[in-house]
């Protein structure tokens, strides 16, 4: 059953929007990494259209998550992937503990993140974000989901990419994840392709998993872990058998 509408003037529902987030960096000094790029991929779950955005910070200066998402929304609207900034959406990453901490405002929003199996995900109240748009400031709420928690333990992003039919771009011989700055310097176009792919895969994976959970198992809740999906199933079956939750 759909969400109850008090009456006809209620806001129109938004499409399912999943935003893949990733960042590339290199070691700068003890306890500090130099951010090379931020990547975002916005997936409209209804139309399956995707907008990709890569932001190269000026001299490694970190951006806020709201700055990055504002730019992504502007691009997505320009490319007609979304009609307006959605009121709620999902931020997905593979090992969010590494990616979310690269944002300059991490210290402000970290209290809204829960620690689940040594990574970060929204377990209680979603992030409340205020994004800039051509129509003025827009307040929206975002759930942070780690795709590591929505896949069997130890599944790599590469494996998820293969399952989705979108394999991760391989680093050429002579380059390593530790020195991505060299890869960016020597092969900027390949770097962009590599980096953006890492943001697209989590967005697609979240949409795929939630789609399967809804279609095959009838689970509507946006669960944070696969274990959570099992709990929802037991709850559903228990209710069906006449048991109380």
């Amino acid at each position, binding site marked *: 059953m759909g969400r109850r509408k*008090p*009456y006809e*003037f*209620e*806001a*129109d529902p938004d499409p399912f929007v999943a935003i893949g987030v990733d960042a590339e960096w290199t070691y700068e000094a003890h306890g500090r990494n130099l951010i090379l790029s931020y990547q975002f991929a916005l997936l409209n779950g209804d139309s399956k259209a995707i907008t990709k*955005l890569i*932001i190269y910070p000026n001299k490694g200066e970190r951006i*806020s998550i*709201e*700055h990055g998402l*504002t*730019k992504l929304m*502007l*691009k997505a609207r*320009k490319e007609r992937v979304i009609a307006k900034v959605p*009121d709620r959406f999902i931020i997905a990453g593979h090992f969010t503990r590494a990616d979310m901490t690269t944002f300059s405002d991490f210290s402000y929003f970290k209290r809204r993140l829960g620690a689940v199996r040594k990574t970060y995900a929204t377990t209680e109240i979603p992030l409340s974000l*205020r*994004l*800039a*748009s*051509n*129509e*003025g*400031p*827009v*307040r929206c709420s975002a759930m942070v989901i780690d795709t590591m928690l929505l896949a069997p333990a130890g599944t790599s992003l590469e494996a998820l990419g293969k399952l989705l039919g979108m394999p991760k771009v391989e680093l050429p011989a002579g380059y390593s994840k530790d020195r991505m700055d060299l890869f960016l310097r020597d092969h900027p176009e390949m770097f962009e392709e590599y980096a953006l792919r890492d943001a697209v895969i989590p967005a697609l994976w979240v949409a795929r998993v939630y789609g399967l959970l809804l279609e095959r198992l009838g689970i509507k809740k946006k669960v944070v872990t696969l274990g959570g999906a099992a709990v929802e199933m037991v709850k559903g079956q228990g209710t069906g058998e006449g048991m109380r939750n």
Partner: protein
Amino acid sequence: MSDLSIEELPPGRYAGMVEKVRYTFTATTKIVITYKLETPGGTRRLEEVFLISAPPSSTFHYRTTTGLGRVADILRIRGMSLAEAQIAGGLKALPGLLEDTTLGVITRNQRLHGFDCPIVVRVEKP
């Protein structure tokens, strides 16, 4: 990526109208007012979201004054008061009462995450 910026709207007074009014309902009620403005660069739309109803026990209750104040301002332009709108049907009647009201909209820019984001300062008679 310099093209990814907010369309500039110089601060000032623009002729406009209330194009659309809708609500979002949770424990509180928010009103979303969409203004259509005629600017030198063409037609622009600005949106405002206000809290207009919250339980008295809620810490957000005091914030409803801003939203009700803006609704009262628009109603005043139409020659009505909040009390009259309440008699006319309250929340259900408000969209019909507010939409299509022609007014003057005073805007300014607010710096938000590195962008000049246009916001409505106040509304007044056209």
